[in-house]
């Protein structure tokens, strides 16, 4: 189909879809007045039942923890997929001289100093966010992403060698797989006491404490570890891909 035919076909479809959406959305409750028992019920009971002050994370890691397990494995599977797609093909990696990325980027002093200062702050900030999942907005995913951005900040500060060293560290694979498998294992451990999968079996502690809410805090940290490891593994495979392209470009 030519591009014009395709656009025409789509515009005919829109002529049907837009009125459908308008007709259906008209019956939604007006914004600002959500109905329904699920949200109200959880906000009433979450603090008492789980000693967690952040209700969103209580839902994510406890009430609907099984969804989050699936979501974590979506991250894991897509990183495996990227590794699978970027695997070195056949005879490329036998006995070739290693192409290098340059050791340092030419960056301005402002950028270099600014990024170096940010790197340290971000590590602490990321750890803080991941550890306080049950108390404040944040949690494992958000903290993990902040931590995973640290090597990029290091790269922007011009220090490519450290960036390579961080992402090529074998611990990143352990973090990724350990985090993903660890979440499922925590769920399985709950069954040792006869409860169902992913029951919160650790002592709940005092509301507002750092070590409270039982497995919510533990799962939050596990997820943070997995997200960090996963993104670092992703960066490493993209880096490897760039190196391979340069190798092929040189031939």
């Amino acid at each position, binding site marked *: 189909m030519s591009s014009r035919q395709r656009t025409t076909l789509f515009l005919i479809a829109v002529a049907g879809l837009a009125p459908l959406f308008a007709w259906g959305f008209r019956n939604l409750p007006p914004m*600002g007045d959500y109905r329904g028992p699920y949200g109200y019920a959880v*906000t009433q009971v979450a603090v008492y039942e789980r000693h967690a002050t952040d209700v969103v994370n209580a839902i*994510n890691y406890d009430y609907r923890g099984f969804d989050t397990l699936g979501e974590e494995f979506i991250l894991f599977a*897509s990183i495996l997929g990227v590794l699978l797609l970027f695997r070195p093909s056949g005879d490329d990696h036998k006995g070739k001289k290693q192409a290098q990325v340059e050791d340092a980027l030419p960056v301005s002093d402002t950028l270099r100093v600014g990024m170096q200062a940010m790197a340290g702050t971000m590590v602490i900030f990321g750890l803080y966010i991941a550890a306080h999942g049950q108390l404040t907005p944040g949690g494992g995913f958000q903290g993990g992403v902040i931590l995973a951005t640290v090597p990029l900040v290091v790269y922007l500060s011009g220090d490519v060698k450290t960036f390579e060293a961080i992402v090529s560290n074998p611990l990143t694979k352990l973090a990724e797989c350990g985090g993903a498998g660890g979440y499922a294992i925590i769920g399985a451990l709950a069954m040792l006491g006869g409860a169902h999968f992913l029951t919160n079996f650790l002592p709940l502690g005092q509301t507002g404490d750092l070590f409270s809410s039982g497995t919510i805090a533990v799962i939050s940290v596990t997820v943070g570890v997995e997200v960090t490891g996963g993104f670092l593994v992703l960066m490493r495979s993209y880096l490897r891909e760039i190196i391979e392209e340069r190798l092929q470009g040189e031939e």
Partner: protein
Amino acid sequence: MLNYLAYAVAAWVFLWGLYGIVTSKNLVHQVVCLAILQTSTYVLLLAIGFKIGGTAPIFADIPVGTPVVDPLVQALMLTDVVVEATVAALLLSMVVKANEVAGTVDPEELRILMG
């Protein structure tokens, strides 16, 4: 009328994202349009869960019982964001590999499978 503005925005962005995918001439552009399509679902979910006068569902310094917005749609949205980011990562790696193997990112030129 203004009560429904957010829902209208969600439908509008959804249709624009679809339009972008249909008329795109670059695979990377198509992946980004897919991400834009996804943001329409975020807008819809968050608008559904909003409460006028409600605050964030964090009870660290407010007593239980204060009106808060719906925490459930926020939890759903967090899951959605992760799903979208990972699918986009996988798709972009396919595009990178396609560029390396076929030398093009134009879907018109990449039409090897057809019929």
